């Protein structure tokens, strides 16, 4: 009985450990640099800079939850960002440019899914290849140029997608609140519903758990995988457009910084690297932590060079933590590899089998 209830405190409250870690980190940074972390400006800046990361990481939560990986999204940010920027600036297509940008991301994602599900190449290889392909396409088509979208803030596209709804307010931090935070919250909230209580979300987690089981219970695994990668493409295109508009500039390698941070956010949030378990709430807090570390370290007086080091360290700690907390059989295997077989893992494993036997007799 004890064995059964053991793992569930973690699962009962979605993303509980990561929310606690977030609160502790926030408290630490507030203590270290009160001037920065107790003023509102830090948080209004997050509202405008974090949405692309959060959108990408939310898509990746589905991908990783299904036991796959996507390395292609940084180049979707370049490619779709380019499609959007050139149509918006050179052809002045306004909302049509937005539609075309989104469509290009959906197409790239769909092709990824097709190659993975129908041709059967592992997603790691597929998306590694398509990443180079689409990043190359973006460079070729743009001729390596960047596009400055000067005056974009006059357009309805800019106003609606990344506008500042309280710009005329008399409170200065209110003026800085950006509307993409709202769109992101709506999209992420909707996808949270999909993952936790829609058929598609359930299928995603079952596929991540086991492709074989999924097939025999009647899930069309290929079709669901194509859908997952198409969703990822769509979200990456959303991120691309928001990023391009927010910066009022397109440049060819604008997506490159997101590869590690987005994957790290998902895994820090508690989604299993082995698939089958995924949490969007955790992912959002993972993004907040990744974003906060960057701001917090700089505010604490460390150079920017430390940021990646600390992010990488937290990333590793988080993965090890989840492995221990969530997967007792992997924990035992790890302890056994490290030579703790005798007392630790072995005794516990034997103990739990003993109780299982007793149970079935009664």
């Amino acid at each position: 009985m004890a064995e059964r209830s053991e793992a569930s405190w973690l699962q009962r409250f979605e993303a509980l450990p990561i929310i606690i870690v977030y609160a502790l980190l926030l408290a630490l940074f507030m203590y270290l640099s009160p001037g920065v972390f107790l003023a509102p400006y830090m948080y209004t800046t997050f509202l405008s800079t974090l949405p692309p990361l959060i959108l990408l990481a939310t898509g990746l939560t589905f991908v990783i939850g299904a036991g796959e990986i996507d390395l292609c999204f940084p180049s979707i940010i370049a490619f779709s960002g380019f499609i959007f920027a050139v149509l918006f600036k050179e052809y002045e297509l306004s909302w049509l440019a937005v539609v075309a940008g989104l469509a290009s991301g959906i197409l790239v994602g769909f092709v990824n899914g097709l190659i993975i599900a129908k041709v059967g190449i592992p997603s790691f290889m597929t998306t590694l290849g398509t990443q180079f392909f689409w990043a190359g396409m973006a460079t070729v088509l743009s001729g390596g140029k960047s596009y400055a979208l000067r005056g974009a803030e006059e357009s309805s596209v800019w106003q609606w997608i990344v506008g500042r709804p309280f710009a005329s307010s008399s409170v200065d931090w209110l003026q800085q609140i950006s509307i993409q935070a709202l769109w992101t919250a709506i999209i992420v909230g909707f996808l949270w519903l999909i993952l936790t209580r829609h058929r598609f979300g359930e299928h995603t987690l079952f596929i991540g758990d086991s492709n074989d089981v999924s097939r025999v219970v009647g899930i069309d695994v290929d079709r669901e995988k194509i859908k997952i990668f198409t969703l990822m493409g769509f979200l990456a295109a959303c991120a691309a457009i928001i990023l391009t508009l927010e910066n009022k500039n397109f440049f060819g390698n604008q997506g490159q910084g997101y590869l590690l941070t987005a994957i790290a956010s998902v895994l820090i949030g508690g989604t299993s690297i082995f698939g089958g378990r995924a949490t969007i709430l955790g992912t959002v807090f993972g993004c907040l932590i990744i974003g906060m570390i960057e701001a917090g370290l700089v505010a604490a007086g460390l150079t920017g060079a430390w940021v990646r080091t600390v992010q990488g360290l937290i990333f590793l700690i988080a993965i090890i933590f989840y492995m221990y907390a969530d997967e007792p059989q992997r924990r035992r295997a790890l302890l056994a590899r490290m030579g703790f077989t005798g007392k630790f893992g072995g005794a516990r494993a034997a103990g739990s089998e003993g109780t299982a036997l007793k149970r079935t007799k009664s």
Partner: protein
Amino acid sequence: MAPAQADFASIVRLEGVQKFFGAVHALRDINLTIGRNEIVGLIGDNGAGKSTLIKVLTGVYAPTAGKIFVRDREIQPNEYSVRMAHELSIETVYQDKSLAEKQPLWRNFFVGRQIANRFGFIDIKREKKVAQEILLDVIGFRGVGITVDSTVANLSGGERQGIAIGRAMHYNADLIVLDEPTAALGVAEVRKVVDFVRKIKNSGRACIYIEHNLAHVHEVADRLVVLDRGQIVSQIDPKDMTVAELTEYLIALQRKG
């Protein structure tokens, strides 16, 4: 719980079924009829094609050639799927591939045929309520610390079989396919499974029972189908052969190759 008034001679009939995996000829010219109200034991050595046959039968693999009839009606092989098999009241309990490890029981009961609204959103409350009924009434798990929220990873092998079999019963199948349900089970658990197979027959359903342990299958089957290297080599009435004779026969079959 009684199946609908039968207006068919056989639940499943295979005619000339072939299955290739690349160059591997996994099933050769399979002709097999499963009648109503009979328990068919499927036996044969590892790699004889038992699992492949089951997967063709239940819509997981499409056959390379041949015909499948369900209730005397021919099924288009390219249209046949697990979902369709479910709709035709064919349920499968796989040895270790029926349940997803990290998912809670209530999701495992309903995945693939969720209780959902027309937008595809799952009615979690109802699924959990029905899952609770299956757990208590169909499977009979009481006071063993298993709830609908338990994850499969925390269950013993016997409990997993119980869950998968209970699911098949809940869906009121006419044909239940059991793929080595007693592998890795304790003696008391095996008893339960064998009793369950009898229950299937008593309720007028059919069952295909794949089993390594010849004593178990000999005890319950009405007919034994012997598979060797992708071919059906004989069909035996268990009354005509003791378990020892059956064992000798299978060993002789291996030597011949």
